[in-house]
């Protein structure tokens, strides 16, 4: 079960929007910072296929500027 965590940087001024967009995605849990323009994203997908699909969906988000991975774990 792939588990990853990221710092998610929103497009300028779009922190709220990004928060809503990511919360709507499956297998995603978000924790927004109160005083900075960044969110923490923890993903937990059941298999590689869903992980790939999630990655695609994240890339499509207009409110997301960049993702910095901070932790990765796959059960191999």
């Amino acid at each position: 079960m792939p588990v990853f965590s990221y710092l998610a940087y929103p497009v300028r001024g779009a922190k709220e929007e990004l928060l809503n967009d990511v919360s709507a995605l499956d297998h995603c849990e978000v924790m927004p910072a109160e005083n900075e323009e960044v969110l923490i994203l923890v993903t937990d997908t059941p298999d590689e296929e869903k992980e790939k699909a999630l990655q695609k969906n994240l890339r499509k988000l207009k409110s997301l500027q960049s993702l910095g991975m901070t932790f990765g774990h796959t059960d191999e």
Partner: protein
Amino acid sequence: MNITRRSFIKSLALNSAVVAAATVFPGISFGAWKETDILSGGIQWKKTPCRFCGTGCGLLVGISGDRAVAVKGDPNCTVNKGLCCVKGYHSVQILYGKDRIKKALVRKNDTLVEVPLKEALDLVAEKMKETIKSHGKDAVSIYGSGQWSIPDGYAASKLFKGCIGTNNVEANARLCMASAVTGCLTSFGLDEPMGCYEDIDNADVFVTWGNNMAEMHPVLFSRMLANRKSKTHVKIIDFATRTTRSSQAADKSILFKPQTDLAVANAICYEIIRNKWVNWSFVKKHVSFHKGKTNIGYGTQDHFKFKDKAETVDFKEYKEFLKDYTPEKVEKISGVSAKDIKYMASLYGDPGKKVTSFWTMGMNQHTRGTWINNLVYNIHLLTGKISTPGNSPFSLTGQPSACGTVREVGTLTHKLPHGVVMQEKARKLAAKIWQVPVENIDPKPTYHTVEMFRALDRGDIRFMWIQVTNPMVTMPNLRRYRDGAKKEGRFMVVSEIYPTPTSDVADVVLPSALWIEREGFFGNSERRTQHNEQIVPTPGDTMCNTWQLIEVARRLGFKKQFPWSRKTYIEDIWNEYIQFHDNPKHRMAPYKELKARSGIQWPFVNGMETKWRYNAKYDPACKQKDFHFYGKPDNRAWIWLRPYELPAESPDSEYPFWLNTGRVLEHWHTGSMTRRVPILHKAVPESYVEINSDDADRLGITNGSKVKISSRRGSIVMKASINGRGRPPRGMVFVPFFDESYLINEVTLDAFCPISKQPDYKKCAVKVERA
């Protein structure tokens, strides 16, 4: 991936991200978003009463897999309504100390070696048989605890009193609540407070009598503060021998000289009578007057015996007796100004004010503990301020189940679950429920706790089983009792969770299951029983105390009396136990209800809790209108004429200081659990001696410098604390007893109240010098 591993990995992921964020954005905060919101998918919440004080907060323990990982206050528990204190919030960490005892130990060639649990249990049973054969049944004993779960105490009582036939059953609640018990019994004929915690929400005035409630019953203290905040006229009076956090919060802090609480309580009654504040309609119908013996001694010698003799008197004699206790006379001995005494009396006497009095160890650990309990009840009886919401003389319990186990199951030398061993009727009832011949139950009590350890020292007791308590730290005049336990021919069995000075003297150490590792029941100060199921598995070879007793009982041939199965024994024991209390004055709730609800008060009659006893409006056991004090044969509450008498040992020219001992918020008793919790240890890592700053100046002592405290019994060197959270007055020092590297009880005195047999840990004479 199972749930535990998955949450663990997710928590790693989350923490990595948090650390990275903090590096990139110093000062970043995630505010209201708690990590649990991400991980909470893996957390299950189960209810339990808290492991610590007698408040009996309801907790929800968060479980992930088979580990306890978090704590919340149980919002459904009326005791604390979702709030805890720092100990409660970190209570689950007590399960995971590195040196947890998980294997049975037996002493071979002077060291404790690991053995299979079965071998240890066999040895315990064998030694018991041997001791009974060579020295008689009264050579074996069990010393339990107010932190025993109710089934533990029940099994112990049944085995020792019912099967073996000895009354050598005692518990550490003798050192904690015995005076409260004898106070209740002498004033009302029945044990335990008649009010409940709702009194806190209803009172207009609170008086704390020598107890540091802010640190010792913090959640109830908060409830008191919330009441005061919501109604501007509410007053809190702290009546104590030293200044504490409770004094800081009080509207008025009144200091008195140790032991003079007896005189002040009488002076308050004098004032109530003089100002015509007596509630005559109440007194005429519901109160009678009595006196007992005086000059009753202190119990410092072996075989000390005392039996009080009650004599009925009348109000006239009571009023005459109080003439020695005018505020002006009492001011001279107590250090409390006549003005303050009159002020306190006016609060009690004001018919428009509801008054709740609280007390714990200041009044109980007292060589006249029974008397001072009587005297505070007297104040509430004279004014009729009792058994109604907000009017409450409330004895707070120290331990989580001193009420539930020791007092209600009766694990004391003279008690049975219902009644006392001296009554034939009570013995017959016990024999019937326990399925033992009635001749088994000995009608003569043997030893109270201090005398039991003296008997161990003398050799009259040869075998002692200690469960859930640490007497090698807590016995007063400790050296004698520790040396006694270590003598040849004494076999000590200790059921423990961590290595302590008590397990250090053991011949057998049985690894015990702790708290939520076993199903159990606790009973708190306000007569509320709370149930917890087994929430986490038992580690290693640990075994619940109840089952240890059952295993040994079966090896002694008592399978018939201990037939229960491992799966349902706790429920079975509860069902057997509550038969003893099956009457409207004491009925206990059924197992199913207790399992479902966050605590139920007894008496539990027709599906309703009795919140205020003796008041016909709330108590179905009353057979009179208005109030009915059905505990006493004359159906009245008793006012006792109790005088002021000196303490056992007062400061003199050679030993000019009072030594006072007690606790701090962060640590529970001897610290065997709380010192292994990081946040609690770091808050108070080491014990110290509180000393008044003027005294410190005079003696050349500075904050943190070493001080030697010596008494006629022993001495100890500790670091000084000046102007810390507690400030004693001149001529007194205070030492908290949670630190086993500072055994302050080597210095204290084993004097006790002759009626309750509870030792006085608050008063002995010491000298203090720079070390």
